[in-house]
């Protein structure tokens, strides 16, 4: 039985505020007459000195958590969560609670600035000059007008996670300008999106089902407790905050955390920790698959047969055997005939046997999968992962035992398969050179157990018809699984043409910007717009990025404070703080707790400015619009308004020749999703609609045999082959920078272990990094003095370099020593912390510390900088996702 925490029930809270439950009534949409209006407005007007206003937290990259601000004489003096928000259930995390210090920050940028010193560098004084908005915008517009007329490709927009809550996307902006160049600084160390996009139809996930999962094998992932997220935030996906994790554990979920480091998830309930060598997780999941298929002979045959491409016949070249209509085929054991996968006469698809059809040998994809893992025994994986073979077998047995293959469950009158088992994967395991293959292999285990999109199994990031099949009967490829078209010479500085399924690659983009001819580009970048992103700090070895940025003739930064890219800018445009903005998110669809019971819901958070502007700053969307107008790409067909209209419903589209404000745009976006009765001026902090829990499961939308998932990735194989052929046509043997390195080996239909050389003789340790509840990235964290103080005073593993005592002894090091950690690419230093909470052979550095911009609060400069140890160079990155390997080989010595 669930228990309502916090001392009083939600209903009791509403009674206390004189409200009634209305917002959460099934099938209704809360609106301008939400009970919260009364709670909020009761003190306004009559008590001019104290007001209460609602807002949306932006202290991490997902603006999900609603807050109520107490404002005294115009100053925000308190924040607290809003219990009625199903996204956060009245809670705020440590970062959310520190948002006041983020707003009242004297290091904020207060006026537009122009650089007077044309020399650039972290150690160079830019000699800032304060200028007016008109002057600043004119300087930017004049530059952009010129290159737009000459070659619009020379404009690049570099964005990042601090964009959270804005309306105009980077893609829309450069499209309207006429440039192909937008790349993001976020994600190169966390490229977790190809596999879900190829298997479950969503950009994020799949994640465990906090309502029904009973056994979860968590490989390298934050499940909520690691970062203490209240509800949204660096949520992984599925809107899972700590409260939902706790619900799952208290309802019987056991978690096995496979990670080089103990994480708080492992300390709850019956959960346990299994230490793994980072970068070897692929070997573990291949061996688990081996044990399931070759030793236990356990898999969900009904699911594999009818909901995966397991029975699809594969030719010797790895492609499907297609019928004359181009459809993939299967062998029907019931009549011994080859049929299209969707033939209505199909009765018994064969999963195991090879056949010769018209002289061509073919085998079902499942048989190839089984054959592929034959050599990946538990003993083989034990030697690589340093997890005992006995433990690997035990994990496989636990997965098999908990899957309850064949069980069903009734949810709101609908019977669905019940598979309360989940294998989930996160950044710690995915951000390696073989990370995409690992992620595909991890998801495959769920598919073999029938635990995808059904209660208890792993879930896509959102609910709805995301399993919609394509012409091959498989979940439609989305996002990064849709290959970017090849073109030579390439047009984009992030080389999507060479990495068709990649995530954001700022590390590569800056290499290209530095030397475009080397990559075949026939133009150079003239102007970069930086907003909400930090490719210097949130990346790999920073010096080459700084050097590349120095080569860009003109940089304009829209910024909250003087971070590293802003320090390199020519013109700085200061943005409003979170409290000073209009914000409205697009609808989130998740499962949440309403009065202690799980429900499915959609919710949009809304914020109007909580307080008046303190300085001469502006809302980012208004700045984008102003620049577009002055440059000449706001109006008319193809202009920014026209591009924005793609995101707006009929009836709310913009007049192509009218100028709008941020509030206008958000109002139309809200109306597009919630109808004409709602908008930015709704007094409620969110719009919310609760629906039947059955809708949370993608199976509901495509039950039975209505869709299939890929466990054989012919799409990846073919992307690699096409890329290789296209390169060859243009005289290239491989992607520039990969000469003599394994690249196409990673474009395989079935994940395989690929041996790679290392220099462990000189660099015998591997470095790991983790987010902490205070420092999860760059969005509110190390520059916040409250978070800095708490991290420094109370978290014993932050602001230093962590090692297991056994390893430290092998290196002759003692606690408190100042040590230098070195990789082939850089070094960092700090005080040595000894802990039993990380495995031997590892160096651990928490958070994103050690900032370098002289314009930041000096507290940001403290601590070791983990990112300096990493590389983003070709030959080392993931050839598919393009991500930076996060566990570089290192050595350590006393300073």
């Amino acid at each position, binding site marked *: 039985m669930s228990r309502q925490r916090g001392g009083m029930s939600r209903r009791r809270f509403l009674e206390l505020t004189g409200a009634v439950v209305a917002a959460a009534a099934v099938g209704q949409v809360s609106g301008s007459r939400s009970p919260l209006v009364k709670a909020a407005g009761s003190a306004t007007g009559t008590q001019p000195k104290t007001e209460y206003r609602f807002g949306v937290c932006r202290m991490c990259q997902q603006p999900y958590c609603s807050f109520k601000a107490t404002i005294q004489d115009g100053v925000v003096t308190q924040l607290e969560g809003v219990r009625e928000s199903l996204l956060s259930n009245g809670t705020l995390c440590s970062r959310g609670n520190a948002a006041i210090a983020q707003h009242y920050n004297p290091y904020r940028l207060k006026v537009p600035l122009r650089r007077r010193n044309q020399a650039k560098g972290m150690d160079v004084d830019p000699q800032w000059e304060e200028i007016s908005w008109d002057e600043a915008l004119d300087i930017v517009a004049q530059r952009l007008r010129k290159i737009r007329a000459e070659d619009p490709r020379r404009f690049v927009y570099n964005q990042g996670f601090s964009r959270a809550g804005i309306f105009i996307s980077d893609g829309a902006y450069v499209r309207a300008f006429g440039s192909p160049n937008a790349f993001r600084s976020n994600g190169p160390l966390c490229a977790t999106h190809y596999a879900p996009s190829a298997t479950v139809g969503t950009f994020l996930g799949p994640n465990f089902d906090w309502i029904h999962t009973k056994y979860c094998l968590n490989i390298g992932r934050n499940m909520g407790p690691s970062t203490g997220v209240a509800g949204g935030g660096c949520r992984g996906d599925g809107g899972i905050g700590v409260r939902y994790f706790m619900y799952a554990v208290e309802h019987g979920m056991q978690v096995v955390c496979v990670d080089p480091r103990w994480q708080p998830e492992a300390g709850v309930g019956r959960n346990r*920790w299994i230490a793994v060598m980072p970068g070897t997780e692929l070997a573990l999941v291949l061996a688990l698959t081996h044990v399931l298929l070759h030793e236990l002979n356990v898999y969900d045959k009904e699911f594999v047969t009818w909901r995966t491409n397991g029975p699809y016949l594969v030719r010797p070249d790895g492609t499907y055997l297609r019928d004359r209509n181009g459809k993939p085929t299967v062998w029907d054991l019931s009549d011994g005939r080859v049929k299209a996968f969707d033939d209505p006469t199909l009765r018994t698809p064969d999963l195991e046997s090879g056949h010769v059809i018209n002289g061509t040998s073919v085998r079902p994809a499942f048989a190839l999968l089984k054959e592929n893992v034959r050599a990946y025994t538990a003993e083989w994986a034990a030697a690589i992962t340093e997890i005992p073979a006995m433990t690997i077998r035990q994990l496989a047995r636990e997965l098999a035992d908990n899957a309850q293959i064949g069980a069903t469950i009734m949810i709101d009158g609908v019977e669905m398969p019940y598979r309360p088992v989940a294998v989930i994967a996160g950044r710690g395991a995915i951000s390696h050179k073989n990370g995409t293959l690992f992620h595909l292999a991890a998801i495959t285990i769920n598919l073999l157990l029938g635990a995808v999109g059904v209660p208890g199994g792993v879930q896509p990031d959102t609910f709805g018809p995301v399993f919609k099949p394509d012409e091959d009967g498989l979940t439609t490829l989305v996002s990064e699984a849709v290959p970017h078209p090849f073109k030579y010479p390439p047009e984009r500085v992030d080389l999507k043409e060479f990495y068709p399924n990649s995530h954001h690659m700022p590390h590569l983009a800056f290499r290209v910007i530095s030397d475009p001819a080397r990559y075949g580009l026939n133009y150079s970048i003239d102007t970069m717009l930086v907003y909400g992103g930090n490719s210097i700090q949130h990346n790999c070895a920073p010096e080459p990025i700084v050097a590349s940025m120095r080569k860009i003739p003109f940089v304009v930064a829209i910024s909250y404070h003087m971070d590293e890219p802003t320090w390199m800018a020519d013109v700085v445009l200061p943005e409003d703080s979170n409290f000073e903005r209009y914000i409205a998110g697009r609808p989130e669809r998740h499962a949440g707790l309403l009065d202690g019971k799980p429900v499915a819901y959609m919710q949009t958070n809304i914020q109007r400015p909580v307080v008046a502007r303190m300085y001469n700053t502006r809302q980012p969307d208004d700045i984008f619009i102003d620049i577009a107008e002055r440059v000449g790409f706001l109006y008319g067909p193809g202009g920014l308004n026209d591009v924005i209209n793609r995101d707006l419903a009929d009836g709310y589209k913009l007049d192509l020749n009218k100028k709008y404000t941020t509030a206008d745009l958000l109002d139309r976006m809200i109306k597009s999703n919630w109808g004409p009765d709602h908008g930015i001026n709704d007094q409620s902090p969110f719009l919310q609609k609760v629906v039947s829990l059955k809708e949370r499961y993608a199976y509901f939308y495509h039950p039975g045999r209505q869709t299939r998932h890929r466990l054989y990735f012919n799409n990846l194989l073919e992307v690699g082959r096409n890329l290789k052929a296209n390169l060859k046509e243009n005289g290239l043997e491989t992607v520039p920078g990969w000469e003599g390195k394994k690249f196409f080996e990673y474009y395989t239909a079935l994940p395989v272990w690929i041996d790679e050389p290392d220099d462990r003789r000189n660099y015998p340790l591997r470095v790991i990094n983790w987010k902490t509840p205070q420092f999860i990235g760059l969005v509110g964290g190390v520059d916040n003095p409250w978070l800095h103080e708490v991290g420094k005073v109370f978290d014993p593993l932050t602001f230093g370099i962590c090692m297991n005592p056994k390893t430290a002894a092998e290196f002759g090091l003692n606690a408190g020593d100042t040590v230098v950690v070195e990789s082939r690419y850089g070094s960092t230093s700090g005080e040595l912390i000894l802990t039993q909470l990380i495995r031997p052979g590892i160096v651990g550095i928490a958070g994103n510390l050690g900032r370098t911009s002289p314009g930041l609060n000096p507290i940001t400069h403290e601590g070791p900088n983990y990112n300096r140890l990493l590389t983003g160079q070709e030959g080392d990155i993931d050839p598919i996702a393009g991500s930076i390997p996060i566990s570089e080989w290192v050595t350590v010595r006393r300073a």
Partner: protein
Amino acid sequence: MAVDLRRCIGCDACTIACKQRNGTPLGVFFSKVARREVGQYPNARMEFTPLLCMQCQNPACVDVCPTGASYVRPDGIVAVDPDKCMGCKYCIAACPYDARAFVESIGSYYPGFEPTPYEKAAYASHRAGVVEKCDFCASRVEKGELPACVQTCPAGARIFGDLDDPTSEVSGLIAERGGKQLLPEMGTNPSVYYLPA
């Protein structure tokens, strides 16, 4: 109050909620989370213990206070009257729970700058040279609200209610889970119970 050690994951949301709610100056914490590493690899783990004023029914701090500044309110909350506190710190030495803080000075979290508008507002209720502590967010509780740390806890690890009411959730949980006071041998009889992990 009951603190569920099974749920606490050491995120310090309570620590900072307390700071922003009470506007505590630099270095002053009314609420915090103690950490202790236990066991040896690979069976090691971190234990988290949230700490705040235990609102003892036999408070050692009150007993040693020479001026009567520390006192027990009728509702059981242990409070400090800053007008009577002379900053002798006897109470800090007497408190077995490290729950009290001496306010050395009240400066900005941004050295070299004027106090921020928030700090000017929040620090008005603080005074240098006196001892301060958690009062269960008495001003919130008086309005029927929860203490800030309870309200904000993402894990739902804090339960606030009436210990004198045996039917309250907090009383039920303490009975059901075998809630324990910290350092009972000190005879302070805390009003905060810890539910075992």
